[in-house]
Structure formats: C-alpha cells, structure tokens
C-alpha cells in the first residue's frame, strides 16, 4: 500500500525524460532517413552489407547435423516415429479410413461414427449438440469427403491425447517446480509466435516424412496452451480444499490425484478444448508437407481455382471445428448429476450403452447395406461443379466484378504498393530506431531494449527486405482490420442482443482453422497480394471486434451511470468514459490481431507472396534446417517485439485504472 504513494512522483519524473528519449530516437531516425534522401548516407548504413552478415544458417545446420548424426538424436526420434507413434497412427488410420495395417478391421462405417457422435453430443449438451454431431458426420459422408475427413481425424485422435498428456505433465511440473516454470515460459512464448512452417521441417527431418511428422508438429503446436491452463488451474485451487486434503492425510501423490487435478478440472478442460482446436488447425495445415486429408484436398482445389469444391471442403472443416469446439466446451461446463438411490447399473450408464448399441448396430447393418459403410464415388451428393459455376458467375456479374476489381486496383496501387515501397526505402538503422521508439512509447524501457535486440538480430539474419515485406503485410492488414473491427465492436456493444450475436459469431469464427480464411479471399480477389491482405484482414478483425465488445461491456456500470448522471451525451460517454476504460482489454484484442496476422501471412505464402513465408515454404521441400530456423526466428522475434510492448502497456494501464 505504502508504495503506491511513492510511485507517483517517480513516474512524473520518468515521463519527462521519457519524452526526451522518444524525441531523440525519432530524431535520429529522421536524420538517417534525410541523409539517405540527399544521398549522403553511406551504403553500409542503409543495408547491412552481405559481408557483415554472419553465416547463421550454416552454423545452425552444423549444430543440427551434430545433434542429429553425431549425437545420434535422429536414431531416438526415428525410433519413436517408426515405433510407438507410427503404430498408433496406423491403428487409428486403419480404424477410421481403412488403411491396410494392424488391426485390419476398419474402416468403421460412417453411420456408426455419426451415431456415436450424436449420443456423445446428447450426453454433453442435449438435442442441439446431438444434431450438430450427427449432422456434421452425415454431411461429410454424403458430400463424399468421408475418407479425407477421416485421414485428418486419424491424426487428430492420436495427436490430441498425446498433446494433452505432454501438456498436463509439463504443466504439473511447472506448477510444482519454479525453475521448470521459469525455463518453460520464454520457450512457450517463442513457440506460440513461431510460424508453423518452422515446426514442420524439423518434424519431417527428425520424424520421417508422412503422418508421423505431421503428428509431431501438431503435438508441439498444441502443447503450450495445455501447459499454461494446467498451471493456471492448479494455482487457482482454493487453499481450503488443499488444506482439507492435507488434513485428510493425503500423501503427495494422493493430493495431486484426488485433490489438485479434480479441483482444477475446469481449467484443464479448457486446455483440452484448446488442444483439440489447435490440433485440428494444424493437422489441416500439414497439407504443406504432403499429408493427405482435408487440408491437402483444399490446397489442391484452391490451387486449381476450383471454388465449388473448395467451398464444400471449407464447410466440412468448419463443421468439424464447430462440433469439436462446442462438444469440448460443453464438457467444460458439464457438472456431475446424482442418481437416486438404488438406480440400477444399466440406467446409470444408459447413454454409454446406447452409444455402444448404435455403434455395433450400424456395423451389423452395414454388412447388409454397404451404403451405411462407405458412400461411393457415384453416390455422393457433391455439387462441386454447380457451386463452382454459381460462384464464378456471381463474381463475374458486372456490379460485383466492378467492385472487386476497383478494390483490388485501389488497394494495390494506392495503398499497398506505395506503403511497401516506403518501408523498403527506409534505411535499416532508421527502421529499427522507429520500432524501438514505438516499443518505448508503448511498453517502456524493457520493451524498447528487447525491440532493439530482436530487430538487430533480424537485420543481421540476412533477410531484412523479406522481413520488412512481412511486416508491411501485417501492418496494412491490421490497420485495415482496425478500421472495420473496432467500429463494428462499438456499434454492437450498444445493445445486449447484438453484442451477444456478434460475440457468438466471433467465437465461432475463432474456432475455424486459419486455412479457411483464404477461401473467401481467393474467391473475391484471385491469387495475389490483395487476397493475402484480405484473408489476414478477416482473420484479424475477429479478435479486434471481440475484445472491443468485451472491453466496452466490462466497463463497471457505476461508471457509465456516473457519466449519465453527469449529463454526458452518448458520444461523450463513449469517448471519455467507455473507450478509455475499455482500452486495455481492446489492446489484448489488438495484440491477438497482430499475432494472428503474423500467423496468417506465413500460411498465405502459397498464394505467392514475397515475404519470409515464401522462403519458409521453399525450405520445406529440402533439408535446409538452418535457413528454415533463421526465417522462423525472424517472424517470431518480430511478433514477440509487438507482443511484449502491447502486453506490458495493457497490464500497466489496467493496474493504473484499477481494473486488474
């Protein structure tokens, strides 16, 4: 308490010097830019000369090959890949899609899967979820995508439980031992910003091409939130419950098994939900290393501009995502209910028995009616061609075409290209100074130092121009999405009904694998830069809108009431009460938007960008692990710079406003 009062004078003192530092940084940047404009800047200050760039990639390659071959790590990883992991994947592949592997009984008839999904949905959330579960699998089967979907699912059902197990184990360790938490934390933040292409190549090299590499990359990708949620949940267990456990004479293991983990159930299940969703998103993306499944098909269809089929696959992926998300979320809030005394065994387990009955029933029925097992090539209801024609003719209509063409021209010629050229013309040191100034202004000294270090590393990585192009795409897309997302959120937050609707839409949209967002972009703008920015724009608008609404809605009611009673007009209330108080929460959305943008810009590589993603995607074809790593680190470092500055600002602001 006492420290609060002593804080203020210090801060004021800090603010005075803060302004000076800011102006110094920006002034230095301006000087360098001016010097460049008048042609007096030496070339080595504009871009770091080739000769000065350390051979990081080669060094890394050396290290990797040392670990891989000399230390023999590859034998360990290959053993895991070819042993237990491949066995699990083969088993699930056999059961779900009928791959010829042990136990050679699959594939399970689609009707059985749909039936069980319905019962599980009913058990978790009543008729609505039952319909969703059954409907999703029914659609998948009828549209003729069963096999693809099951290829995707067969990796998911192996990767998700493994990611869960690894995550909960590490989460418990991080909670138990402070040093584990301290060691994990920076790794997790890097992992969460590392582009997924960077997970893929090491996975391929160490774990063999094919489903095993896909599964490994997926697991690594999905583990971080599970660790964080586990630690969070365990820390939140009420001290009285802990003491009750101790007073009951629990040993350490009993405490963990019977007290801590069950009491942290909610957070752990939220972690499970995130694991499932991230696994799905990632499994779809493993298409880039040639994994078969929904992702691969979507990639192929989009590449050959078959919009109808792309659309259908997109619907399947979305349905799967929504089903998995809703069911796992229903599980989070599902509380145990008691049965009356003396309820017989079969009644207590009636849903499990029903599921078993349906499962076996459909298997038997499928022996008689094979259509229940597999829907053949000629039998499905895919309308790919028709939808394709429909979409294309719709887009070719004069009005629509005029708008999209104009938009494309306007964005490209008037906004994107000039902006990009400006950024590229800025000398490297000036660029870094500007970023440092921005970080200093937002996040303070610590953030500024990190920004300086991180961007200097990027400068010395030898991929400066590509990094700037990546950044340019991210900034343009995020700025555009702010222009759409924030006003949308402000308007929606005015009425309870609309905020709920938009929040639901945002929540649903956030569960979609990022890949999906490329479909409308490509439909509207074809395969070019504008489509990239557009897909990032939709993807990044979601968190912005969401957190704007959330921020505005969580403004304490007595403050808005105070504003009302002070006679503030609606606009005054918004500008001087609601927005300032909502800003820290909105910053979280802004941060997420930037992270999403960095994620998306890399995926968009296959549209044909000129940024880091493009180079990254190229490395996937070969074995240049070092280069892949350098590129990935560049993306991660840039993302982390923004993440730190914004998060630190939001936290400070929240504390200052007394909202934390």
């Amino acid at each position, binding site marked *: 308490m006492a420290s609060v009062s002593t804080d203020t004078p210090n801060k004021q003192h800090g603010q005075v010097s803060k302004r000076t530092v800011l102006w110094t940084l920006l002034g230095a940047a301006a000087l360098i830019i001016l010097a460049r404009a008048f042609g007096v800047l030496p070339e080595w200050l504009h871009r770091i000369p080739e000769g000065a760039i350390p051979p990081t990639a080669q060094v890394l390659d050396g290290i990797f090959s040392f670990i891989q071959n000399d230390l023999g790590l590859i034998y360990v990883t290959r053993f895991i890949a070819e042993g237990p992991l491949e066995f699990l994947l083969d088993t699930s592949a056999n059961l779900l899609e009928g791959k010829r592997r042990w136990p050679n009984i699959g594939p399970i008839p689609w009707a059985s899967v749909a039936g069980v999904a319905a019962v599980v949905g009913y058990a978790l959330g009543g008729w609505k979820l039952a319909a969703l579960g059954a409907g999703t699998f029914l659609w998948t089967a009828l549209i003729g995508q069963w096999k693809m979907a099951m290829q995707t699912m067969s990796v998911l059902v192996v990767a998700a439980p493994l990611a869960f197990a690894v995550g909960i184990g590490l989460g418990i360790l991080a909670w138990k031992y402070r040093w584990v938490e301290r060691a994990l934390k920076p790794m997790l933040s890097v992992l969460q910003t590392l582009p997924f292409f960077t997970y893929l190549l090491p996975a391929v090299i160490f774990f063999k091409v094919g489903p095993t590499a896909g599964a490994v990359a997926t697991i690594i990708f999905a583990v971080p939130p599970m660790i964080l949620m586990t630690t969070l949940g365990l820390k939140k267990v009420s001290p009285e419950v802990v003491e*009750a456990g101790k007073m009951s004479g629990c040993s350490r293991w009993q405490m963990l098994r019977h007290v801590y983990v069950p009491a942290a159930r909610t957070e752990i299940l939220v972690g499970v939900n995130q694991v499932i969703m991230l696994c799905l998103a990632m499994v779809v993306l493993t298409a880039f290393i040639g994994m078969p499944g929904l992702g691969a098909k979507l990639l192929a269809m989009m590449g050959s501009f078959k919009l109808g089929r792309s659309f259908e696959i997109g619907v399947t992926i979305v349905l799967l995502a929504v089903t998995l998300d809703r069911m796992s979320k229903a599980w989070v809030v599902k509380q145990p209910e008691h049965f009356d005394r003396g309820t017989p065994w079969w009644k207590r387990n009636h849903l499990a028995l029903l599921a078993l009955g349906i499962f076996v029933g459909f298997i038997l029925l499928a022996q008689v009616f094979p259509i229940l097992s597999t829907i053949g090539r000629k039998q499905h209801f895919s309308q790919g061609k028709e939808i394709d024609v429909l979409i294309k003719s719709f887009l070719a209509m004069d009005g629509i075409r005029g708008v999209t063409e104009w938009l494309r021209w306007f964005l490209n010629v008037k906004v994107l290209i000039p902006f990009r050229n400006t950024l590229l013309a800025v000398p490297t040191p000036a660029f870094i100074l500007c970023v440092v100034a921005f970080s200093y202004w937002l996040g303070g000294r610590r953030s500024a130092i990190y920004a300086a270090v991180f961007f200097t590393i990027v400068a010395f990585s030898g991929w400066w121009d590509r990094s700037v192009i990546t950044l340019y795409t991210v900034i343009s897309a995020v700025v555009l999405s702010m222009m759409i997302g924030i006003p949308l959120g402000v308007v929606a937050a005015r009425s309870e009904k609309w905020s709920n609707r938009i929040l639901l839409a945002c929540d649903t949209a956030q569960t979609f694998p990022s890949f999906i967002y490329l479909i409308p972009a490509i439909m509207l703008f074809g395969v070019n830069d504008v489509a990239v920015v557009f897909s990032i724009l939709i993807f990044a608008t979601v968190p912005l809108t969401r957190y704007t609404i959330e921020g505005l809605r969580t403004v304490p009611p007595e403050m808005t009431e105070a504003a009302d009673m002070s006679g503030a007009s609606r606009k005054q209330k918004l500008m001087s009460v609601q927005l300032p108080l909502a800003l820290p929460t909105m910053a979280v959305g802004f941060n997420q938007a930037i992270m999403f943008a960095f994620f998306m810009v890399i995926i968009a590589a296959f549209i044909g960008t000129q940024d880091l993603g493009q180079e990254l995607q190229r490395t996937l074809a070969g074995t240049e692990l070092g280069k892949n790593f350098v590129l990935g680190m560049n993306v991660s470092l840039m993302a982390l710079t923004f993440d730190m500055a914004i998060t630190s600002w939001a936290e400070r602001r929240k504390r200052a406003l007394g909202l934390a």
Partner: protein
Amino acid sequence: MTTSSPVIQAKNVWKIFGPSPEKYLSGMTPGRSFDDIRADGYIAGVRDVSIEVARGEMLVIMGLSGSGKSTLVRCFSRLHDITGGTIEVDGQDIMSMNERELIDMRRNKMGMVFQSFGLLPHRTVLDNVAFPLEMRGQDKHARRERALEVIELVGLNGREDYFPRELSGGQQQRVGIARSLAIEPDIWFLDEPFSALDPLIRREMQDEFLRLQEMLGKTIVFITHDFDEALRLADRIAIMKDGAVEQCDTPDKIVMNPATEYVAKFTEEIDKARVVHARGLATPLNGAAIEGAAIDGNATIHELARILVNDTREILPVADKQGEIMGVMQRQAALDVLLGGA
C-alpha cells in the same frame, strides 16, 4: 481434567511470514511489536503464544480477521510450519515428525472443518465424507459403512449421492463436519465453521454442534470472530490480537475481569448476566455456615434472577453438577452482575 497431560501444548510459538523468517526471528530483539516487525518487512502471524488444550476441553480462539487465529490453529496441525517455539500433540513434538508420521497423525488423530467448507466438488457427499478413510486405505465397504454412519449423525441421510453444489450452505457444512468426524479424531479443529452461513442457520448449526459435542466429548479448538458464539460454546476463550493471545480464560472470568483494554471493549456490550454462571461467582466455603437449599452452579445469573431477587439470604450455597456444595456466592455480587450496578 486438569491432572491428565494436555492434548496440545504450545510453548512460545512464533509464526513469521517473510523472506527468511527463521533468521529474522533468531536475530530479533525481544519485545518487538506487530508493527515493528511489519516495518522490518515481515508479518507476524503468531507472536510468542503459549497455550494448552486439555483433554475433552473446548477452547475457542476469538479474534478479528488478521489477528492470527487461523494461523495458530494451522500451526497446531502443522499445515503451517512454525518459526519458533514448540508444539506437542499428545506429548510428541510435531515439528520433529517426518512426512509419514505427520500424515499418520492427521489420518488418525485430527479432523478439521473449514470456513468455506473445502469440499471436493467432483465427489458426492458420500465420497467426500469417506475421503479421509479412502486416503488411509480402508476398504470400500468399511469406509462406506462408516461414512453412512456419520452422515446420519449430522442429519444428511438421503443426500449421500448429491454433489456439494446441489446442497445449501448449511448442508455443505454438515458434510464438512461429517468428513472431519469420519476418522473418529481425538482432536477436532473448527475454523470459523459457521461464519459463511446466514444467522438463522448459524444458530441452528451451533445447537447441532453442541449436541454432537455432548455426545462425542472431543477435544476441540474452535475459531470464531463472533464473541457471542465464543461465549456460547467455550469452556475457555483465548482472545487474540496481532498474533498474540491477549487473554485466555473461562467466559465468566473474561467477562468479569477483562485483562486488557482490548478485551474490555468486547465485553462492554455483553449482557453479563447471560454469560456469568453461579459457579463463576462462587468463593470457597472457608468454614462459613450454610443454610437452606443450594443453587445450581451451572445456571447463569440471568437464569437465577428470580431466586436472587426473592431470596433473603446474603450468602447462597452453590452446588456443582453432582449436587455437592462447591462454595458460596454473595447475593449482592450476583445482583450487581444482574442489574449492572457497581
């Protein structure tokens, strides 16, 4: 009661929270106050407390929030490790116990009830109550039988299969009580067990608690911030402030002779006649001649009001539980208590 050795014996117990409390305590000059210690960057949870709990006694620890009462009781069960002093339970120094011995002690000797119940949300009433039995490895049938027995004892039969969130606050605390009694503990800790309940239920639970205590006769350490509750339940009350015990005595004596100003503040508003018992005012016979019928020593002055007003004797004989004369009471002294004169 007094001749047998105490169940819990605490000597000069200190509990200090902070970066390196042991070192701080050993280097501390004696007589530092709570605020002095806080200025040094430490929080004194318990300051130099020496207290004994006799077998079968109900000791109520009373104090406002932050006075260290919960900390002290957690030291008795070693939920907190103490910084200085010794605590013996049944003559055994609990700080020298290893983890195994500590777990054994809790499994067999101690039960505890918590303010916000501390129930495990994923277990039914039955499984919550059976939890300590399960932890010590009792087989399923035995623990079920015992759990049903205590559930019946606290009046929750029929709700065995409910989950905690399906019960009211009062019912949840009954589960907490049942769980703490399941292992038949010798020592029963209750940490503000009724303060999370609304006043009507609280009263009902206190009655229930007194009934249980009558039946079971456990050694009890009961924590409360409610002075009325303390007076109602206690054999002895320890009043705590800033981690130290201000006064530890029977309710009668605390009300009649508050040791410090702080204690006096609590007793000011109390209707003394409802607290003080005849035995509390009784003085030894010393050969005085007694005449007439004796009054009940366990009755409060308030209950004796009519007799006191009507009786003409100046000195009244007082009888104990067994009906034997234990001493005499000055009628005037009793009337002073009753009428507030002095």
